[in-house]
Every structure is written in C-alpha cells, then in structure tokens.
C-alpha cells in the first residue's frame, strides 16, 4: 500500500464523521510521523476545506508536526508542580543527546509524583538526574 492509498484509507475511515479533522490528523501523524504538505492538500480536498484552513489547524496544535523526526521522544513535564519538585535542575544537568528528542510538556497529570516524563504511553515518576539520564540513554 502506498502512502497515498494509506492516507485515503484513513480519510475513508472518518467519512461522514462530524468535526473529523482532528481525528484524521491524529491518524495521519501516527501513520507517517508527520503531516506533510501533500497530506494537507489531500485532506483539504476531501473535507472541502482550503489548504490554508488545514495548515492553520496543523500548525496550531503542538502534537502535529509538518516535518518528520524519527528520533524517539521523551516528554518531560516542566510545569509548576514538577518545578517545585526540582525538574529544572534535572533538565539543566541532562547531557545533550542528539539521538533523542527531549520535549517539554506542560503537565502529564502526575503532579504528586513528579518530576515526571512519558515515552510513548509509558509513564515515569519520581525521576532524579540519574534515572532521567538512564531513560534518555536507553532510547538512544
């Protein structure tokens, strides 16, 4: 199945659904790792929207990216509760690793057991510098 067919299959799966753009973009992001210019064009055509409208939605939300990034992602929470539990010192001490994308998120809802991070659907709490470093290293 080509990318084009796969995209059309995703669009087909959401046919007739009200307010379908976000669910479609989630599926496209999951399938291809990003929402490409070509995908935007095709989605706009099928949903009878302008490309600008679809681009506007893709660029608005933090979860959608317009360029692929194959690196594994560590989502590190740096909101107030994790700050109060020392995440800033952890983040400052974390060695740069070009093979892992350490992203900042504002709140994983693990505020009582922070500092917290998420990799895929796996959650990690009570992180210290060593555990966070080991987590990043294990993905590289």
């Amino acid at each position, binding site marked *: 199945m080509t990318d084009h067919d796969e995209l059309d299959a995703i669009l087909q799966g959401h046919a007739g659904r*009200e*307010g*379908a*753009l*976000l*669910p479609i*973009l*989630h599926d496209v992001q999951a399938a291809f790792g990003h929402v490409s210019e070509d995908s935007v064009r095709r989605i706009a055509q099928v*949903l009878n929207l302008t490309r600008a*409208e679809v681009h*506007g*939605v893709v660029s*608005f*939300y*933090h*979860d*959608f990216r317009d360029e692929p990034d194959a690196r594994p992602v560590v*989502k590190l929470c740096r*909101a*107030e*509760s*994790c*700050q*109060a*539990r020392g995440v800033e010192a952890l983040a400052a001490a974390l060695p740069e690793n070009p093979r892992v994308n350490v992203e900042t*998120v*504002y*709140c*994983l*809802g*693990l*505020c*009582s*057991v*922070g500092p*917290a991070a*998420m990799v895929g*659907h796996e*959650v*990690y*709490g*009570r992180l210290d510098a060593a555990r966070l470093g080991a987590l990043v290293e294990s993905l590289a």
Partner: protein
Amino acid sequence: MITVRISDDAAALACGANAVAAAFAAAGCTVERVSSWGMHWLEPLAEIGGEGFGPLTPDDVASVLAGTSDKAIGRIADHRFIARQQRFTFARAGKTRPLSLDDYAATGGWAGLKRARELGPEATIAEVTQSGLRGRGGAGFPAGIKWTTVAKASGPVKYIVCNADEGDSATFADRMVMEGDPFMLIEGMAIAGHAVGAGKGYIYVRSEYPHAIAKLNTAIALAVPHIAPFEVEVRVGAGAYVCGEETSLLNSLEGKRGEVRAKPPLPALEGLFGKPTVVNNVLTLAAVPWILANGGAAYAEVGFGRSRGTMPIQLAGNIQHGGLVEIGFGVTLGELVFDIGGGTASGRPVRAVQVGGPLGAYHPPADFHLPFDYEAFSDANGLIGHAGLTVFDETADMSAQARFAMSFCAAESCGKCTPCRIGSTRGVELIDRIRARTGRAADKVEALPQMHNARKAPRTLGDEIELLEDLCETMKFGSLCALGGFTPYPVLSALKHWPEDFGVAVPGQEAAE
C-alpha cells in the same frame, strides 16, 4: 490464595506498580488492578484484606507476604489522610476495578441514572439545582442554571460536552475519575443528556492522558446497554492548553484551530456546531450520579457559604503527602497543606502555595486561614480553579515563577486577542529586565523626535514594576478568556507577597530590624 489489590492509575504506573503487581503474581497471589486511593506518596500501594503496604518495590513482596514488612501502614480506610475526607465522587477510589460493570453496579452504579429516568427531565434538573453544584472546572457557574438554559433552548439537536482537557499543573482529579471510575462519568453524562434532551455526548480528553483515553473507550463500549439511546464518544486533543477553555474546546471539537470565541452567544444556546450545548468539567458531571442517587439536599448539606458539596482537591508539588483529598468546602488552606499534606517533602519551610494551576495566585503562609470556597479566594485576589495546590518550599524564586507564568501564557496563547498574545511576551521581557535590575533607557523608536508623547527619560526599577502592574491590568480586563485574563494572578500575587524577589525594598522589614 491471597488477593492483592494494586492500582493501575497512571500515577501508580509511573512509580512502578506493574512490576510490583507482577512480583505478587509470581509469588502465587491473585492480583486485582483497582483504582487509586489517591495516596500518591505511598504508590505503588498494595492492599491485602484492607491493610495497606507502600510504597513498594518488587523486593518488598516477600516481606509483605511474610508479615514482616516495615512498609505496612495499617488499615487504609482508617489512615488519617483518608479518614478526614468526605468522598462522594471518589467513593469507589481504591475499591473497585475501573472497567468492571459488576463492581460498578455492586457499589451503587447506575442508581442515579435510574432515578433520573423515573423523575423525568425537569425534576432531574431541579435536583441538580437544589444540590448547589457549581462548575468544577474553575468558573464555578451553577450547573443547574446551565442545564436549565440548554433544556429550554429550542432545537432537535443538543450536545453534552465533557471538558476533560485537564491541563493545569497540580490537577489530576479528572484523570483519576477517567482512569479509576469511568462509568461514573459516563453515567453523569447520560443523566445530563436525559435532563436537557441531548442525544450525544463528547468527552474531549487531552492527548497527554493515553491511559484515560484507553479506559474511557473500553468503558463506553461496555456501558452502551445502560445509557442507550444516549451516545458518548471520546475525542482526543492535540496538546493545546487553551482548549481547556470551553469555547476554544468547542472549536477544536469542530475540527478548527482552538481559538477562543467571544461570548455571547453562550455555548448553552449556540455551542457545538451552533447547537445548544452543555459544557461541563469531568468533576461536575461525575458528581451528578451521587446527587441523583442520594438527592440534591444531601449534597447541599455539606459545604461552606455558596460553595456546596465536596471538592476533590489535589495536593502536589513539594508536599510530603501528595494526592487526592475530597472534602467539603470550608477546609482551610493551612489544614490542607499541613494537617492533611504533612508540610513540604523537602522538610524546609513553605514559602508559597499556588492554588488553581498556572493561572492561580501564589499564596503566602499568611493566607493559610483562608477557607476553601470560591468567594473567599476571590476576595483574597485568588481563585480555587480546578483545586490543584502546588506547594513550594523556601528555595523557590518567586520572580522566576512570575516569569514562568508569562512565558506559559505566551507559549499557550491562542493568539486571538492582543492583550494575551502580545502582552504575555512583553511581560516576559519586562520581568527579565526587572530580574536583571538593569532598568532601561528610551529605545530607538521612543527617542525619535516625532515621538512627542514617548518617554525620553530612562526607566528605573520602580518604573518597570509600575509598567508590569499596568500590563497585568490590561491583560486582566482586556483578554477574551481566562488564559490572558488570569495570568496576572500568579504574576501580581508574586510581586505583592514577595517584592524582595523583584528587587523592591520592603519598608516593613527594614522597620522591624
């Protein structure tokens, strides 16, 4: 065979609950995965015959089973953290398996929906109105009035929208409901649908909560025979904090940019797809089954002033006993932080408590007498918001926290209104200058001869602080929604209570010395 109950709530998983559960299973125990008691500092917490053990690692399993563990905490229900609470919404927490219809029905599940159907729509709304239930998302708008507006709105198509975009730091009660007692939320939505005449409900969950999304989807499929013809669907957000604002959430559900809408029209009259819509927070809808099953009057008996019933309060940040505390309104901030929360985890003195998430004020220990109540906090220039408490010890730099509030607003602003979009960025720059204590000379544009009204004299630290207060005033009254409108709360409260962190001399302290 020994039955061991261990939570599968994300907070427990983050602390290694799966490994502990596997170790108990390997030792020959029957392991039941239940919801969390909300005693997060003890996670992973194991319960055997009512007795609790935690926080456990797989290495502790042998000593727990041998009865020699030093991590025994006695009977969980009698623990002082739990014993003081009044659990209505979280009555099942720690006791039932989240996706077991049998457990749900055996603990009073569906009784509220059954009674609502017997009462009919009007009497159902009357119960909710009588309960005094106010929106738990932060605004505190009476749920009964909102439902009445939607019920009276004309039109064949109406919606129930559950706001589960719980983005505030220090809040996790919505997540605990969705992961620990999803049927209760679904029942609450079905009651709302019955009351206002809506056939379809959406739960808008943030993408940072994959465990909640999975549980809800499974629970909805299981609940179909109980709630039919009402339908519920989960929609997943995409990492935009501002989508927790109800009108921007509606735009996002419609597949648009999550930009805030101007009100009026109220969502109750023109909401999702332009149709009358109830938008309620998870905790609001989750409180409804209890109210219908036990009566609005019973709910209203608990509480303080115009804040009736219980509030699931979340203790987070630098606190010894972090977790979920459901208790009647009126408990004081100091009781929450010290008596229930046990003070800071670091053992240092408390410097500040932020109440209500990133848009809530920072309160000094001098505010600890404040009763938890919408009006009392509003009078103290704060808000209770979604009732999350973040405790900071004396190492906190409050001007840095003020800067973070502005930078958070800049990162998450939807961009629709100017005070929020531009004001937050200027606010970060301004606080950076204040923190650097540099002051500022007139810039290139201000220095131009044609800028007759521009200030030519350099700005001192005092001038910059005045400017920050002025900027906060503009954001507070000029923004379309709470993101820009409430960001001044953390900034101004930090400035007011900890001026020394902004380089301002405190006359009172000098006089005392």
